[in-house]
């Protein structure tokens, strides 16, 4: 009855996009060599990593999570974030019909290998607009220094 609600414009390409996402999730990316800890994209949460001369910046796109239930750990250069996202779907009520259930629910755990020059004691993490931003500082000794010429 409400199929029309899910029939979005540009549906063909959007469907391909989703198909590709699901295939990647099922089989992993094929071809190029990747990090031994690499995971297929499409897993929750999505992660972007950036680098500055003084720090490593990790962004985990994890919307709708109570920050106090997020667990972030750094152990021997591997950053692990884990937590749980409850399902938003109604349960057990027969009078409700579910038309789309694409959002992730359940327990999740993701790891990121950090470069060797990071300082595990200087880490900040904050959660805003559904994005967990973790900033790991690099060790002072590893940062580029200007040598003064006398």
């Amino acid at each position, binding site marked *: 009855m409400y199929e029309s609600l899910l*029939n979005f414009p540009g549906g063909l390409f*959007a469907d391909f996009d*989703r198909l590709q996402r699901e295939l990647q999730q099922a089989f992993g990316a094929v071809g190029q060599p990747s990090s031994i800890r690499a995971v297929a994209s499409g897993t929750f949460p999505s992660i*972007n990593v950036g680098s500055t001369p003084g720090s490593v910046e990790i*962004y985990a796109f994890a919307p709708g999570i109570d920050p106090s239930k997020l667990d972030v750990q750094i152990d021997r250069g591997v950053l692990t974030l884990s937590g749980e996202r409850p399902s938003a*779907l*109604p349960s057990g009520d027969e009078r409700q019909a579910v038309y789309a259930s694409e959002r992730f629910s359940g327990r999740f755990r993701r790891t990121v290998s950090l470069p060797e020059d990071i300082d595990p004691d200087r880490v900040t993490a904050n959660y805003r607009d*559904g*994005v967990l931003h973790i900033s790991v500082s690099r060790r002072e000794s590893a940062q580029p220094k200007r040598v003064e010429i006398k």
Partner: protein
Amino acid sequence: MNDKQEVTKAERQSDTPALLPRVDVFEDGTGITLLADLPGVAKDKLTLRVEGDTLQLEGEISPETPANMEAVYAELHLPRYRRAFTLSSELDTDKVNAQFKDGVLTLRIPKHAHAQPRKIEVKIV
């Protein structure tokens, strides 16, 4: 002339590549609930539009990044989300309720009062 320009501009805007946000959609007797994951979108960067029977949601991702940061690895590689839905006539688009918290948009689209299920009492005479 002016109108035409505006149309082409609007078209171009909807042509820019965007991520498809993941959604949950479910319906009960009084309306439809839609949840959409839009992490990284600030409240003022989210737009919801109802045009005719189309509901479009669009959000721009604006993370606070240090100025001299280079991307090393990215799973989210586009700065915006966009998705549109076609609504049916029994949904009351004037009474859409939207909440946006921690990157999750919750939309409640009620049905028109006349489209809601009514219980008819049978009187025994």
